[in-house]
């Protein structure tokens, strides 16, 4: 293994968590969202409902990405759900995500109902963004957080769940 390759690998290991590009935003229906959430059983999952036009949402996404990075070893995963009006192939959400938050794994709603994906988690969701749900390792909603929060507030909210 060449020295150059080793140096490149070391650099990549440091840089990747900050700049790697997540899967493109995919428009999904509720059944697929259920499957996705089920596939994360065993992890603590942060589900963040956001919108590209929601300034408070955009301010907290960098903190959520940092939190995911901090807590990766404890099995914490971050999933975004954009509630923007659906466009073909979720092109508008993906254009935005890839430009501003390339490391953000997010899905987009495919249907006309703004609350259809949130209903999978919370039948009482009142169409406020940002809304963040913390799901425990069994996939149960442990906490609903509405409005923009700080990194410290998210850390604190997550603390009790990751310890279990």
């Amino acid at each position, binding site marked *: 293994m060449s020295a150059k390759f080793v140096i490149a690998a070391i650099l990549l290991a440091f840089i990747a968590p900050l700049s790697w590009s997540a899967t493109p935003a995919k428009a999904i229906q509720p059944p697929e969202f259920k499957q996705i959430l089920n596939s994360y059983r065993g992890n603590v999952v942060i589900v963040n409902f956001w919108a590209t*036009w929601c*300034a408070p949402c955009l301010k907290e996404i960098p903190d959520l990405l940092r939190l995911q990075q901090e807590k990766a070893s404890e099995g914490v995963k971050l999933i975004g759900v954009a509630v923007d009006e659906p466009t073909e192939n979720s092109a508008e959400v993906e254009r935005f995500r890839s430009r501003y938050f390339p490391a953000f794994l997010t899905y987009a709603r495919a249907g006309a109902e703004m609350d259809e994906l949130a209903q999978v988690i919370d039948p009482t969701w009142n169409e406020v963004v940002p809304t963040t749900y913390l799901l425990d390792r069994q996939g149960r909603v442990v906490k609903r957080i509405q409005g923009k929060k700080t990194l410290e507030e998210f850390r604190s909210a997550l603390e009790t769940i990751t310890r279990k």
Partner: protein
Amino acid sequence: MIRTGICCLVLVGSMAASAFAAPLQVNPTGHKAAAADISVGANGDMAILWVDRSPNASAPGNHDRHIAATDVYVSIARAQDGAFGGAVKVNAAAGAVWGQQVSRPRIVATPNGTWHVSYAVNDLHPTHQKTALTTHYTRSTDGGRSFEVGRRLSSLTDQDMSGTIHGGFVSAAAFGTMAAAPDGSVHVLWIDTRHMQPDSDSGAMYAAVSRDDGQSFSVERNLVNTGVCPCCQLMAVTNDRSELLLGSRKVLPGSIRPATVMRLSSSSNTSAESVSIGGAPWQIAGCPLKPTAVAVTGDHVFAAVHNGGEEKPGVIFSVSKDNAAHFDFKGLVHPEATVSDAPSVASNGKTVLIAWHARANGPRHVFYRYYSLDGEPQGEIREILTGDNAAQSPVVATRSDGAYQIVWQQGDNIFTDTLAGQ
């Protein structure tokens, strides 16, 4: 126009009929429609407006498309026969409109029959070469058959705020409303982020007014410099003295965001203090997506909004009998619902009609209820039955015959129906 057999109107709890006709689908089949608005002219003509988010909206002419690429359409029903005409495209450049449920284009009529439309547009800032979200206006002086080329009412500011509002916009002038007064003035208002600080979630409110039926507009005016929820929509109506009653959300210390109504003089645009419509304080550093709905008759002002601060969050209703100086909180309109939101209010001078969407059992449906001018419920909560089809985002208006017209979104289509005036 398609007459649909999907829906019918019934009472929840009793069997009294209330609708005059079966609901009509307003938008052409095959198009994806959303974010409807409705207005009634002095001659009884009605206009329904909607956003078309069909794929062909992303055609050339839509320059630096950001996050929405839509067109705006209008359909007019003549008072003589009540039949809605064909859909007329309002914006000239295809797909240039930033139109969606949270930033609805609006339509109003002035007494001489001109239709006025305001909407947000993705403009390209000439210096920064980034998207600037701006408020535009157009009008139809031929009864809705055609619309003039849109004009920008909000200015392009010099600064680049894209780092502050994190959305790539160098500035944003959107989430607006429009109202036409009996004196013929046309008021376009919007929320503006040009003064927003990096550590703040507080916007400003700007307005432009026309006193020549939309031929020209004043230079934009800063009505409220700070403390306006930046992503909560505005809603304006006018009273018979041509004063504006403006529903909005304030941002108070501690991220308390009360729904308020502000009264503004039409002639001078001077404003009274915004008054809270009541309810429990809601601490939310976020975007409640629906506006504070307002209606007026005489000195009675009616306001409804979703309040997440209530013990059981939902739509609340308040009444002022002194022209928005004080509001009496009437409580939740649909306490039995799992969640209720998106209210719209209208009054024909004898009754008040509130419509909203809610989840009770099953998919989200549209509900409505009549109230007295004192805010007391009259009859039961009624539902627009759409079966397994979800329905949302109703808007109501008073017709010239005293009945009410309601419009709502059902899937990717817009429907309308007439409800009795009681």
